[in-house]
């Protein structure tokens, strides 16, 4: 019995061969695919009766022409995109919060799907009105949900049974986070060096070491020590401070280390 592949025309309508997600049928797919682990000195097994090809999910029902047909069919149910929102920045400016919900359709007795109650809210923190302290506190409060590279806060809620309730809960969370991050509690003044997100040079061990060393150098040369502010404001100390901050925050690269070396040499008056 000749397989159907040999009777297929080249310009046939593929979406009628695979209208829905279906198992891989070797007699219906006219491609010479091989898949599997080859035996010694052999080739991967052919597609006939190939369990590997049948096990995996295939997207033969989602070719671009098929997608075009889906979109054409869905167009009757959609409204027009507002013409004023033609760029991404405008969308972000007017609608900073993006709400994502998923609807599921399946052939079955019930139209309900428990996965449909999940709601995802995405906000860029630059669109929120936060000062330095509020921003750091918010980032600490949300933890994993904030992505520092893209500056996006993502809140996913699914603890309520209905989608509307989850959406309300998500908005409530956002509001509470915003207001709480603006408040300053009494115990926040006990923030120590380990809690800091990035390295702060003022009042650090490095600053104290540098000042001690400079004072001792001045004392050994019998010069007047000068006040701490003068020492801190001098050019050498400022460069040293920048190099230490770069080292700690950005990690150690060749450039950072050589910069640090130059600054330390200038600070301690070492001639080469």
């Amino acid at each position: 019995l000749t397989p159907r592949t040999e009777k297929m025309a080249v310009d046939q309508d593929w979406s009628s061969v695979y209208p829905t997600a279906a198992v891989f049928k070797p007699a219906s797919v006219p491609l010479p695919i091989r898949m599997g682990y080859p035996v010694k000195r052999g080739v991967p097994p052919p597609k006939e009766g190939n369990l590997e090809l049948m096990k995996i999910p295939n997207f033969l029902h989602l070719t671009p022409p098929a997608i075009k047909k889906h979109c054409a069919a869905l167009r009757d149910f959609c409204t027009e995109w507002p013409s004023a929102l033609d760029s991404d920045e405008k969308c972000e400016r007017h609608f900073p919060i993006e709400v994502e919900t998923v609807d599921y359709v399946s052939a079955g007795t019930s139209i309900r799907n428990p996965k449909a109650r999940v709601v995802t809210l995405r906000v860029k923190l630059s669109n929120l009105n936060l000062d330095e302290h509020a921003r750091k506190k918010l980032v600490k409060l949300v933890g994993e949900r904030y992505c520092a590279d893209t500056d996006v806060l993502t809140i996913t809620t699914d603890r309520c049974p209905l989608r509307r309730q989850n959406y309300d809960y998500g908005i409530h969370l956002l509001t509470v986070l915003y207001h709480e991050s603006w408040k300053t509690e009494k115990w926040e003044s006990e923030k120590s060096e380990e809690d800091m997100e990035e390295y702060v040079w003022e009042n650090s061990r490095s600053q104290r070491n540098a000042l001690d060393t400079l004072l001792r150098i001045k004392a050994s040369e019998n010069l007047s020590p000068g006040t701490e502010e003068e020492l801190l404001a001098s050019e050498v100390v400022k460069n040293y401070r920048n190099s230490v901050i770069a080292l700690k925050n950005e990690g150690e690269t060749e450039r950072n280390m050589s910069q640090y070396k130059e600054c330390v040499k200038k600070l301690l008056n070492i001639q080469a």
Partner: protein
Amino acid sequence: MLRSLKGLVCHPPKLDHASALHTAARGCLSAAGSQGLQAPAERARAVFCTSESDPARHSQQHEGRHYSIPLEEVKVVFPHGLPPRFQQQIKTFNEACLMVRKPALELFTYLQNSNLAHPAVRYLIYGERGTGKTMTLCHVVHYCMRQGWLVLHIPDAHLWVKNCRELLQSSYKKERFDQPLQAAFWLKNFKTSNGHFLQEIKTQRKYVWGKRESTEEGRPLGEVVEQGLARARVACDAVGVVLREVRQQCRPGSFRLLVAVDGVNALWGRTTLRKEDKSPVSPEELTLVYNLRKMMMNNWNGGAIVATLSQTGSLFKPSSAYLPQELLGKEGFDALDPFVPIPVPNYSPMEFESCYSYYLDRKWLQHEKAHTEDGKEELRFLSGSNPRQLERLVAPL
């Protein structure tokens, strides 16, 4: 073992020839004029070898060349400092040859121009595994010994934080722990290398060791060292006393002090030692480590501190870590800040040529293909110009 025996057997005729020429060269000519008047073999040797055996006179022109240290000096200067593989190499070749490299030369300029009235400057040698940090440190130690500095050389601080059989509770401070074996070993080597200083330096305070022993004020430091060697229980405290005295008496007028520590990241890391109730011991609780940390501070003047970071012996650190912050940790970096970092890279092409010709000259490379250009390129590729890898590759050849 067989390898080294073979090397020794075919050595004597070449060695006499080489050492005779070498002493002649050192005796009458300086390195600059050596090329003109010697036989072609020596001219070839002079490319990678220099007869300048005083590190103080090493300079840019000697870069990439090997210089040899007389064996008697090796016994005095480095009783415990050299890496074990290099010690084996010394035994095989019957001479100790060190390559002059840029990081060491840089350190020499810094040390020469250092102002002794200022607080001690800390220099940190760092680099990837096997690039020659310990050898650079040994070069610096040799230089300082020649210049007459007092050298406090701790060969490997990692040995003090791991594999200790005996951990005694310190008699001086209740919560600290002593390590008598390591302390006694170090005191013995310190005596060998700095014997002459021990008579000159006098104690400034009375130290009481036990119910019946004490050291009066004004006695030479040698007595403290003897006390530490004789009674193992007080060895760690003797080390502490030595460090303290040396630090306080080091002024611009008197001797100069070099503190050379290998594997300084051990002082701020973790230890593998445990107390009797199986709780881990942190480094501050060890007397030796505590005293050494005080030396690493820059609150004294009249000398310099040169330290090496080492991943090889370090505990609980990944093998790819070589940067100062990774190995020292936050505490260590803050304690050593501000320091001058000195990176030690792999061999440059010139240094690789020099090392390769040295091995060839010493007849260490016996394989026929190793003498060809292709062989050299292969060695260069396989070792990645890494000194340790090259040495390991070349050993069975």
